């Protein structure tokens, strides 16, 4: 009974390890992975369903800052990833696919304020670039 261990020992010596060396190689992430949100403000119709279905109340509908008020008069989605449980209900309920979950899982941070995703941050970046 105990001698059965010996051939296994030699087999294990020359076999590949179960793990991968993470920063250099990683296992592929499947397509339906639920990671960080991506939000397309132009597709959003401001129905607010995602904020209602969110069970951690991580989604808040906020108004645009004054400089964008003309272009975006309604309320838009602000996500607090710190509260999010990545259930994907907001993605499923969205009628226009404006809110989606991406494959990005590098979300750890030292700064608490960075967990909040403002709806207009992309817009601000664009205008900064054009200036």
């Amino acid at each position, binding site marked *: *009974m*105990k001698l*059965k*261990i010996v051939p*296994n020992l030699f087999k294990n010596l020359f076999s590949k390890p*179960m*793990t991968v060396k993470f920063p250099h190689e990683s*296992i592929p*992430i*499947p*397509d*339906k*992975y*639920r990671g960080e949100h991506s939000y397309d403000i132009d597709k959003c119709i401001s129905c607010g*369903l995602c904020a*209602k*279905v969110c*069970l951690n109340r991580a989604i808040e509908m906020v108004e645009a800052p004054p400089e964008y008020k003309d272009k975006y008069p309604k309320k838009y989605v602000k996500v607090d990833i710190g509260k999010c*449980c*990545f*259930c*994907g*209900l907001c993605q*499923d*309920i969205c009628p226009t696919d404006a809110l989606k*979950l991406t494959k990005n899982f590098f979300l750890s941070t030292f700064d608490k304020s960075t967990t909040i995703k403002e709806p207009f941050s992309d817009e601000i970046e664009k205008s900064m670039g054009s200036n």
Partner: protein
Amino acid sequence: MNDKVVVESISKNEYELFFGPAHPGSGNFSVKLKVDGEKIISARADPGYLHRGFEKLMEYRLPIQNAVLSDRLCVLEALNWNLAHAEAVDELMGTEIPERARYIRVIMAELSRIQSHIIWFGAFSIGTGFDTGFKMAFGYRDYILDLFEMITGGRVYPTGYICPGGVRRDLPDGSKEKILRVLDKVDKMVKLEVMENPAMVARTEGIGILKLSDAIRLGATGPVLRASGMKTDVRKDDPYEVYDRFDFEVPVRNEGDAYARYMIGIEEIKQSISIIKQTLNNIPDGDFIAKKFEKPKLNIKIPEGEVYVRNEISRGEAGIYMVSDGGGKPYRVKIRGPSFLHMISVLEFLLEGTQIADVPAIYWSLNICPADLDR
């Protein structure tokens, strides 16, 4: 004169020992042991470290949100609890579940059972000082987590994958081959385990014997009761989903000790593998969720009524009692976790009169989960 000295020394040796909740081998749960030297005089379970108030939380949420919440009932077998919750809602609403969804539910529940049993083996190994077993178990468990990631989108938490009405996503392309490949790997691991580590046998054989009459009196279910010699399994006795279409055995042992419980777990992995293979061969095409639930809706009403659903999960018998008053949210949800009776009445009974060194072996042989005890 001599007698008197001995009596005094015994009373000085008596002390209280805390096993958990921050003990590496206890897992968010503590047992207060009254010890005389190495011998345990009495044990008192001290739950409450992981209480999150699920029963109350569920009264404030819609069924689709409760499906997500039901993951957290037990981290190690989230999908089985998903299934129990979804069945309760389906029965209240009288939903017609598509055939394909029923088969996918069985596949996922059985995969979840296998990975839960593998964790059981790992925790039991490290509890009895067999470190290799722990690492091997968690290595092989990761293959199953890869499948969960592919199918549900998350490794540990499926977040309500089995939801009222069916399942949230269809099986992706090529998943049958991937599942079969992982099952082969698990099968290989089971064969390695069955080689029987002699140290493990020495630590567990004849330890923590639970007789059948005691097991029934203390309310044991699932593998603990089966290891004591009773042939019982909700999947056979009161079949839910499509379990009545599959051919599988219920492993039973008569010894009732820690080793018998461990071997029941290993046998059950083999049976689950055979169930999944049968399911994959017979899975029909079609919808994976009922039309009514295709997109999450906020205005679905649950008809008035009450229901009690029981499921066989890896730790024993899980029950969900749900009352609805006709609104969208359940009026009352009562959850019966199998670990409640295993960790309080059975554990206190088994620990009495044993040695300190046997505590982890008995503790982990019960396949406990503090999360579903405290809820």
